[in-house]
């Protein structure tokens, strides 16, 4: 009898062990993701039958790894952190599972439409947004006052140039304008493509013919090079988000135009020397109906090769839910809540009070339209990128030309002419032009 009981107990234990699933989550090392990992014990408490394993990596390494895995159906990951660039491409390739089981209380309609539309293909959602961002103007209120100027809520590029010049004091090491200069499709190309949209430029016409030989592109790049020569910091061709963040936080920049997520960093008194002297405004425009702001979100998706899609979707549902937002607010404070994905967050006065950049973030995200990114019609989706597989390659190659124009290694015309040739060649090989 005793032996039978032991066997029965062993049976139950082994059944329990067999029923327990482990899902592997691949993510980037951003503050919001670190918080998600810290708070994930809440998920495992609610779902004792699911264990979590984490793989946290730098963005480019993560992209290389998950791309290899998803393309070869390796099945190493059950939840992947990917961006709005990958979702439409991978969704069309059937590399992702449709998120059709996020639970009854998920409230899909609460997702900000601009963000949701970038993750939806043929009315099917392929990724859930974890946090969303656009770009905006961050400026030093004290320097602006000293210059005798007032930043409008929606400035023009002309005003930015004028203000940057007035705020620059190179002897004191203060530069009027900090912009990304580091070459890369997610670096200077993200900024300059967004700028170009507001100047009326586009990457391709309706027939996929590259458009770098147009006056709109020349105006954009000439403005960028000129304004950086006038008011930018030395060595700006090496500056990306983090380098400019460091410059702004240490009081070296008058104006910085970059991701809305930076709002939380520059107003954080622990790290920022100028935390109480920062103002925010919408990304600039040129009066053509489009602003120079981008749209990006880090999302959670389930690769088609996952063997545990139900558990993976349960996790995604938890991490991108309203309840998770409340959990972060309770444990870390409202300012630490992942921004830019749900309308309800911006109806919450506690969040709006804690994040002085919240309204600008929402306005920027809502004004972004990935399907109509610029003044003229385009055949592609994406604001600061073109959602085609070739873009990583051509984007970085074009970024190198822009960077060379910034350093003076080539003229604006040469940089655009070279960009035109190399993009034409790639697109011709890929049989895009009709």
């Amino acid at each position, binding site marked *: 009898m005793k032996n039978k009981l032991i066997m029965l107990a062993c049976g139950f234990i082994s059944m329990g062990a067999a029923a327990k699933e482990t899902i592997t989550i691949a993510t980037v090392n951003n503050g919001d993701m670190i918080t998600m990992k810290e708070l994930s014990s809440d998920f495992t408490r609610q779902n004792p039958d699911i264990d979590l394993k984490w*793989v946290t990596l*730098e963005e480019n390494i993560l992209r290389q790894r998950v791309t290899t895995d998803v393309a070869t159906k*390796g099945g190493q990951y059950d939840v992947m952190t990917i961006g709005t660039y990958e979702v439409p491409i991978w969704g069309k390739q059937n590399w992702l599972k449709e998120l059709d089981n996020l639970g009854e209380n998920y409230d899909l309609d609460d997702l900000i439409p601009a963000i949701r539309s970038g993750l939806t293909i043929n009315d099917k959602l392929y990724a859930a947004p974890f946090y969303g961002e656009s770009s905006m103007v961050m400026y030093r209120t004290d320097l602006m006052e000293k210059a005798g100027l007032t930043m409008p809520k929606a400035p023009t590029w002309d005003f930015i140039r004028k203000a940057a010049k007035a705020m620059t004091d190179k002897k004191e090491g203060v530069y009027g304008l900090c912009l990304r200069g580091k070459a890369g499709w997610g670096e200077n190309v993200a900024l300059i493509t967004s700028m170009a949209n507001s100047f009326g430029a586009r990457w391709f016409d309706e027939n996929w013919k590259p458009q770098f030989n147009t006056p709109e592109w020349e105006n954009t790049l000439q403005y960028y090079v000129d304004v950086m020569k006038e008011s930018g910091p030395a060595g700006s061709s090496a500056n990306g988000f983090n380098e400019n963040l460091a410059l702004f936080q240490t009081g070296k920049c008058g104006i910085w135009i970059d991701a809305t997520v930076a709002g939380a960093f520059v107003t954080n008194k622990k790290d920022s020397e100028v935390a109480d002297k920062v103002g925010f405004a919408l990304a600039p425009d040129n009066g053509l109906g489009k602003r120079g702001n981008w749209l990006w979100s880090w999302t959670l998706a389930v690769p088609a090769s996952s063997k545990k899609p139900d558990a993976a979707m349960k996790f995604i549902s938890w991490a991108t839910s309203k309840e998770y937002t409340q959990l972060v607010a309770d444990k870390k404070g409202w300012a630490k809540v992942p921004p830019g994905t749900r309308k309800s967050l911006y109806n919450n006065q506690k969040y709006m009070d804690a994040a002085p950049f919240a309204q600008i973030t929402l306005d920027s995200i809502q004004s972004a339209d990935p399907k109509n990114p610029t003044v003229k019609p385009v055949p592609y989706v994406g604001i600061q990128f073109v959602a085609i597989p070739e873009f990583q390659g051509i984007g970085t190659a074009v970024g190198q030309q822009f960077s060379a124009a910034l350093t003076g290694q080539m003229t604006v015309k040469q940089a655009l002419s070279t960009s035109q040739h190399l993009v034409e060649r790639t697109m011709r090989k890929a049989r895009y032009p009709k």
Partner: protein
Amino acid sequence: MTIKDSRRSKLIYTIAAWTISGMIFFPILWTLITSFKTEAEAISASPSLYAFDWTLENYRDVLSRSPYFTHFWNSVVISLGSSLLGLLIAVPAAWSMAFVQTKKTKHLLMWMLSTKMLPPVGVLIPIYLLFRDFALLDTKLGLVIVMTLINLPIMVWMLYTYFREIPNEILEASRMDGATIGEEIFHVLLPIALPGIASTLLLNVILSWNEAFWTLILTAANAAPLTAFIASYSSPEGLFYAKLSAASAMAIVPILILGWFSQKQLVRGLSFGAVK
């Protein structure tokens, strides 16, 4: 040359050696110093070598956020395992090339070395598919195999160079005494070539420890070594330099200590090995 000239040239060489060593070591020193700064101090426009508030905060954060010892253990298993497995294959291979040469031996050696000239990404997809099909993805065994294969040409070359220095007559004498091939290798060749084998082993441990392409691509949560641990502290949006420095320091210190204690063998290995 007078004694005065000799002293002067010695002084110049000493200064040059210290300057070059200092330049090589400075990035490591800077990483170590940055690991004791706050993130704000790490990005300061006027950074200081010592005049800042030293803190262990980064080490505490890194240890609380990542399973350092799991990564460390994975690194130890992968680097030692691949080096030992590599030796098992490389010793007989180098023996045959050094002592039983044919017309094609030199070509074979060059061909082996040429495999190192191929960019790893060129064989990424086939290797990934093989790993997937043999269920080797994210396993230490898989990494041991791939590290062994990557470093095998260097091991064979180094051992071949060592073995060539050993007079063939010694081995012939053992054969005359009736030794089998195994006895010849284990009882005669290996004791004589032990310093060379040790330096080959050490160099390969270091190469495997630092390898950061396959170890990042082929692992996920279970077999990820310290290279993945470091890679998890870089961020596209947010300041991370101090924490990244702490993670880097924790990853390189064990191998630095190993290198320090075995520098004699390493120097001998590098100066007499394949890069002679």
